[in-house]
């Protein structure tokens, strides 16, 4: 079957999707069961981009073969080809894929002003699913020769240049181009690869840009200005162009991707780009604000949609294996150890961290090792979210409409749009969150690191299928939505946490569920408790914060809302926001112990080797 032929959504019964990661290719099968799309089987196999295979499709076929074996449905024919369309107990109707193999999409971006056009260019690249290796701007505090030196050291897959508003000055953006062209950044894919340059700046500068890059060695692509005016950011065309170039150039140079592209029914997407797409689809569909996080071994991605505006950041060196040592260096050991309630030897911990860095595939065996690893994860997530908040801002340089009260404010845009009080849904994915032995641990990692305020749903991506659903949403939105709701998310529960601070032991808020029929009580500042509320259950919550505390309706004002349960339940958190732990180590340890006991975070575990067989 030829790829990317028009699909009639009503005739689709079986869908196969793969995500080709750097180490593992993960495949899922989605089937229409009783008229509803459900994820039914999964399989995985090592990714085969590198030698001796050097062909990504080998791993794809292996992962799909695993599904074939567990489902009993014949998916691959004798020639190793995916059987399409589906008929009886054979084949599938759609096959789609995402990819982050070979290090994903690596870009360099440039703009004139770091906080304006360069920031917009970075947003476009990140939104398209790229890793931004560096951002060059006229005011980035580096001297021109230092910028050139940096450009020469990088080996990007493509470069995105922005700068200038339409009809404005052309000189500055041309200067930036004149720095990049002679520096001749070397692409990753060898000497025959013409480095793609995407220009999305001032339309008047196009002839000059054409002149600068016309001398050879570059493949210049021109698209609409991503910042046509100071007040407006227009990232769509630049993101689309990045995606096109990714397919035409980057993917075409990766081993076996020409074959993979020819067998998919929709263009292959970079994995993080697909995750961003599904989160946006959900946020818009439900009219909510959402944050998603994916913490991996090397990097942590944070995605957010607030009032319809999407942002993504990649914290390149915050991760739980390859980058664990960097988390400890950035966060500092005292910050990590404040989350630990038992004695640990710091010198030994430092050596353990380095041993995890050099042998990244090991897993914690003892409870002590798990507690420490989750403490590191809290700090990695906290730092990644901090970086995200600093990046996800209103447009800088834009004069805001002001009230009399703002008269003395000198701000001209650039405030973060991330508002934890407005946050409705927080979604977790990535090993340390997904594979935590207890869902309570996942929920508390999210709460401690992200500090949601007011009332927030907590969920986790069951088997990291958001990338598959992201690309599926481009060809079959209904199937993507149905699977997301039913199989992708596991709801952990709802967090209720007032904003404000007080003295320990003083009242913080009172609450009742279903007018007291399912419980009621009061929490003092510093306390936390979990109320049972099952996975498919909802209840009417009425919560009255004490004076000075806010649950979203204003300080001291009662909030009534339907809340949803989950595998953990309703988490009532009266530790205040911003969350602060006592500075004195002994008091801090007592506070953390209190939380661990209240939430039953680490119930007594069996000694290693005496565990029960499954």
């Amino acid at each position, binding site marked *: 079957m030829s790829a990317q032929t028009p699909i009639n959504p009503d005739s689709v019964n079986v869908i196969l999707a793969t995500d080709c990661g*750097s*180490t593992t290719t993960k495949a899922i099968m989605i089937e229409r069961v009783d008229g509803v799309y459900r994820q039914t089987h999964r399989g995985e196999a090592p990714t085969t981009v*590198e030698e001796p295979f050097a062909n990504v499709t080998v791993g794809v076929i292996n992962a799909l073969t695993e599904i074939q074996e567990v489902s009993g449905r014949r998916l691959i024919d004798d020639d190793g080809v995916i059987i399409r369309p589906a008929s009886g107990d054979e084949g599938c109707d759609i096959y789609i894929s995402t990819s982050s*193999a*070979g*290090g994903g999409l690596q870009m360099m971006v440039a703009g004139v002003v770091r906080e304006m056009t360069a920031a917009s260019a970075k947003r476009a690249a990140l939104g398209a699913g790229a890793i931004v290796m560096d951002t060059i701007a006229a005011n980035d505090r580096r001297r*021109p*020769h230092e910028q*050139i030196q940096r450009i020469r050291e990088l080996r990007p897959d493509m470069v995105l240049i922005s700068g200038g508003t339409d009809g404005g000055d*052309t*000189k500055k953006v*041309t*200067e930036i181009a*004149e*720095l990049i062209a*002679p520096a*001749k950044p*070397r692409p990753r894919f060898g*000497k025959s690869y013409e480095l793609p340059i995407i220009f999305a700046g001032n339309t008047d500068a196009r002839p*000059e840009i054409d002149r600068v890059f016309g001398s050879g060695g570059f493949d210049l692509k021109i698209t609409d200005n991503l910042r046509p005016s100071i007040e407006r950011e227009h990232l769509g065309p630049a993101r689309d162009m990045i995606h096109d170039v990714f397919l035409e150039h980057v993917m075409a140079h990766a081993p076996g991707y020409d074959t993979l592209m020819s067998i998919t029914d929709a263009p292959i997407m970079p994995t993080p780009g697909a995750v961003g797409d599904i989160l946006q689809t959900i946020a818009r569909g439900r009219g909510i604000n959402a944050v998603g996080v994916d913490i991996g071994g*090397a990097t942590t991605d944070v995605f957010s949609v607030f009032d319809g505006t999407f942002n993504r950041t990649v914290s390149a*060196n915050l991760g739980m294996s*390859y*980058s664990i*040592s*960097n988390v400890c*260096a950035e966060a500092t050991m005292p910050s990590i150890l404040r989350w630990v309630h038992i004695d640990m030897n710091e*010198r030994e911990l*430092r*050596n*353990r961290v*380095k*041993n*995890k*860095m*050099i*042998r990244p*595939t*090991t*897993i*914690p*065996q*003892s*409870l002590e*090792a*798990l507690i420490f690893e989750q403490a590191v994860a809290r700090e990695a997530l906290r730092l990644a979210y901090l970086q995200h908040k600093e990046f996800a801002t209103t447009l800088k340089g834009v004069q805001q409409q002001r009230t009399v009260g703002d008269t003395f404010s000198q701000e001209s845009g650039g405030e973060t749009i991330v508002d934890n009080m407005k946050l409705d849904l927080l979604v977790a994915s990535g090993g340390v969150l997904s*594979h935590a*032995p*207890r869902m309570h641990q996942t929920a508390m990692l999210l709460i401690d690191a992200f500090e949601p305020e007011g009332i927030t749903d907590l969920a986790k991506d069951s088997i990291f299928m958001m990338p598959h659903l992201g690309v599926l949403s481009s060809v079959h939105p209904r199937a993507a939505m149905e699977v997301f709701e039913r199989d992708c998310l596991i709801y952990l529960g709802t967090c209720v946490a007032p904003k404000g601070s007080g003295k320990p032991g003083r009242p913080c808020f009172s609450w009742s569920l279903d007018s007291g029929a399912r419980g009621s009580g009061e929490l003092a500042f510093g306390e936390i408790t979990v109320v049972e509320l099952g996975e498919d259950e909802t209840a009417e919550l009425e919560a009255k914060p004490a004076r000075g505390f806010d649950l979203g309706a204003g300080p001291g004002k009662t909030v009534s809302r339907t809340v949803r349960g989950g595998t953990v339940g309703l988490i009532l958190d009266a530790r205040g926001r911003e969350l602060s732990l006592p500075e004195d180590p002994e008091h801090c340890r007592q506070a953390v112990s209190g939380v661990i006991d209240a939430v039953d975070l*680490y*119930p007594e*575990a*069996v*000694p*290693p*080797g005496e*565990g*029960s*067989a*499954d």
Partner: protein
Amino acid sequence: MAKAYTPGLKVAASTAYQAHRVLPIPGTLRVAAGDVVEADTIVAETFMDGDITPLNVANLLSAQPGDIPQLMLKQEGDAVEKDEPIARNKGVFGMFKSECKAPASGTLETISKATGQVMIRGESIPVQVKAFLPGKVTEVLPEEGVVIENQVTLIQGIFGVGGETSGPIAMACDRHDQRLEASMVDESMQGAIVVGGARVTSEAIARAREVGVAAVVSGGIDDADLKDILGYDLGVAITGTERIGLTVIITEGFGDISMARRTHDLLKARSGDSASVNGATQIRAGVMRPEILIPVGDAGDSDSTGSTESGVLELGTPVRVIRDPHFGLIGTVASLPEAPQVLGSGSKSRVLEVSLETGEVVTVPRATVELIET
């Protein structure tokens, strides 16, 4: 029979090794197929474009960018010397002229009428690739480099810092579980690959640097000592470019840990022989571990033995536990239960039982062992 797969480091008394020696950009080869090369033989070389120095002449002369070509004293393609005038404005009534001097020597590459920016390209930078491994050139990659082959004793370390170097093997520790202290390093080890036993101290490395040792190889190192040596806390294990005066290779891991006995015995047996070592480590997709290569003679002299690359884990296979609470202990696989078990952490994982050298049997997750040779 129960089997599983797990990665391990290569430790081989004799194995055929191919060193791919390639230039970063196309260039000229200095050797041909069949040539026999030494470690420091230059096998390929090229010239990289020189550094670029930009200069905004329009700003410096307070002139319009479009007028710059008329104000230039040097044209595109001209050679310029540092501090040589390259542009001059017309001044006021022919007086008060100001000049613009070249900030660097090189060739004037471009003059931009759009921005008034001038680019000076410096001298080309020579790039040379040495053989690193003594042996025979078995393959030529036109304009790129060569493949050199030899039969070697191969030891992969777990982590290293510093780049390529070579020298004779000198044993500082007689036993595999002996700590490498400063007092064990002396002047006779100048230019040598010094082999320790268990953990190497920062004082020993400082002494080695002072004496002019080429590389230190030992079982373990303390994180705090590594920080001392580097001058910063290493965040990500991508190394090889550090300039610390010598190369350091750790064979087992961080902390008080002995070098595997077989590794130590192999190095001891080759004491005095010339070795090529590289500390470069990259722990990401396409993992790269530090290596010690000691040629054993003509290719084909002996068969490859002891490579653990296959990664098959079965009953009796020697393994090393690579995570606490049994970190560093060595034993053999006693059983490979099929069913996952609940660990002390509460996680469920597939496990194996290891019979330790002490006779004790411990249960550990399969992900926390690696294969070793005995």
